[in-house]
């Protein structure tokens, strides 16, 4: 398993030029033909933020302590990375099938495709960051610890890559995954402290701790919103899980690789 991990990483490094150009193609192509174009990268998370903000402030107010005030800013810190996570996985589930032509007709390193979806969504996440930083600055939450968000970001990247590899290869065999994944991600969203702070739900904590995304999210919120970063241990645990997820994804992909060209 370790050797597949190393090989997978080596492959990805070898194809970095390809990955790079595919990511930039993805970014260019996504909003081609739409009126707002690139602005959608900013508007999308803002709209999502507005929706959740309205719903959970006015319609179904969540029980929360004043530490999460202002709520919109707190919410923003979690929504942005979560959007990266969930869109990556949703897109990854269909990416091999929709690019079946490449896999069937061209000698093409299939693992590049899920990786590209993750990285393209990371880029969108990156486009949203300046807005988040402006909002943090405006609300007076921006502190030097914001730089530490790199740590949860890297853990999330590894985890998302692993899951994307895993899901993309498996979906080729079981198209059902594409249908169920949206719901799983929804449940996962609510099981991750995005809408609420981890500290505000003591009863759920033992359960939430098992979710690697919990630790990633706490990492972001601490670094960006609370301005103190103490969740190192949790994040380290999440890193180990992410490493395992990546290895498992790489292993599964490697195992199923030969069947991909025949099944898509």
């Amino acid at each position, binding site marked *: 398993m370790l050797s597949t991990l190393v090989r997978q990483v080596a492959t990805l490094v070898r194809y970095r*030029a*390809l990955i790079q*150009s*595919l990511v930039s*193609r993805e970014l*260019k*192509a996504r909003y*081609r*033909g739409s009126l707002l174009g690139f602005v959608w990268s900013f508007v999308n998370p803002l709209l999502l933020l507005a929706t959740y903000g309205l719903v959970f402030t006015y319609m179904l107010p969540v029980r929360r302590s004043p530490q999460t005030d202002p709520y919109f800013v707190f919410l923003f810190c979690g929504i942005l990375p979560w959007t990266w996570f969930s869109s990556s996985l949703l897109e990854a589930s269909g990416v091999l099938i929709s*690019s079946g*032509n*490449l*896999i*069937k*007709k*061209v*000698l*093409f390193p299939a693992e590049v495709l899920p990786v590209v979806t993750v990285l393209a969504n990371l880029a969108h996440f990156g486009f949203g960051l300046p807005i988040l930083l402006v909002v943090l600055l405006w609300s007076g939450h921006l502190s030097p610890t914001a730089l530490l968000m790199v740590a949860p970001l890297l853990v999330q990247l590894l985890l998302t890559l692993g899951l994307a590899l895993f899901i993309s290869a498996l979906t080729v*065999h*079981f198209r059902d995954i594409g249908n169920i994944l949206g719901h799983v991600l929804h449940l996962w969203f609510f099981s991750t402290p995005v809408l609420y702070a981890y500290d505000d739900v003591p009863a759920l904590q033992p359960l939430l701790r098992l979710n690697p995304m919990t630790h990633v999210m706490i990492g972001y919120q601490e670094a960006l919103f609370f301005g103190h970063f103490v969740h190192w241990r949790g994040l380290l645990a999440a890193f180990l899980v992410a490493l395992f997820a990546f290895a498992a994804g790489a292993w*599964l992909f490697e*195992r*199923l690789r*030969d*069947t991909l*060209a*025949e099944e898509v």
Partner: protein
Amino acid sequence: MSAPAVVATDVTKVYRRFVHKNQWKTLKSALLKGSLLSDLRPDETFTALDSVSFEVPQGCTFAVIGENGSGKSTLLKLTAGITRPTRGTLDVHGRISALIELGAGFHPEISGRENVMINGIMLGLTREEITRRFDEIVDFAEMSAFIDAPVKTYSSGMYMRLGFAVAIHVDPDVLLVDEVLAVGDESFTRKCLDKIGEFRRRGRTIVLVTHSLGLAEKMCDEIAWLRKGKLMQKGDAKRVVDAYLTYVAGGEEALLAHEHGAPAALESGATAPEAAPGESGPGSSGYHEGRWGSRDVEIVEVSLRDARGQSRHVYAHGEALHVVLKVRAAAPVSDFVFGIGLFTADGVSVYGTNTHVEDHVCQSFAGDGEVRFEIDALDLVEGTYLVDVASHRRDGTPYDYHRGLYSFRVKSRTKDVGVWRPRHAWRFTGVDITPPQPRPELDLGDEGDA
């Protein structure tokens, strides 16, 4: 000859049929053993290729022929590395480019320019290499006017042309071609064939899957014939095509009869094997390459040379071309005629003559001799031309007829059309027109045959 470019050893490819209830089982076995087969009963699998072994020497143009479903495309995909053999090994030495589906991976929303870049990277070029070849690619595809438009606005012909242009400019050591030569109009198809021919002359290896036997025989050094996943025959292009045609016409028995009747007819070309004197020429319909005749006067060797006696394949328009035949008669003959025919690549006769119609009177011939047919100037437009050479009786009974087995190319900077370019001049009176600037000599490069 150096190491083979492609080595297939006992290549077997088994596809499993798509059976839904076995989904879990196949996934499980794929995971546990890395194999999809062990748990499946034979009736759930389909053997696309069955223990196929062959080698393609470097610089060889190799065609794979066979009916639909014979495993040709599977073989090509295996060679390209897109899928892996179930059993056996398939090794390829050097960079591969596969013309299996042109423009696979083009993204409809972005411009042709960007797609060329990305497609090139997908096919293994670096960014710098593509930038360097970019203009050449666009020129070749005849797309310079549309290169910045999104690919979704292209016609299917444009799409294919661009796809072909990128793939061919990858400059691979091994080029795999799957029936994609029908891209676009006549002139572009010709251009593609010419490009492939150029590859050939540069000593690159080509593996071609085709239904066009004429093309296969004309272009290829060796042909493999697949039938239901099994390698039926492999070797000299002419021989395999003959065997295939015999089979298609008369089934297995005819093939056996053919095999016993004419053993390895052209394998070496050095000896004169028995060939049934009654064996007739090709049917009246169309132009089919081949060789037939009693070989009483055998044409043992044919070479196309320039004025200096250099064996060449490519000629500038207006150059001299000498067709040199080495002939041999095992027993003395007194009734013999030597003939020459020139054809365009489409099989249209350009010129034909022989010693008889030109009133040479044959006396006697025995042993070895040489016949030269000297053309002072190739007044032909650019294109590929085929050469027939023949020895026969005055009444036409063939001794040794080589039909379209030799070809040469005429290159020219002028884009005139037709076949014949008469020596001509333009004269103007009262018309203000600038005569062409003198142009540098046409560089034929290293394309001459060694």
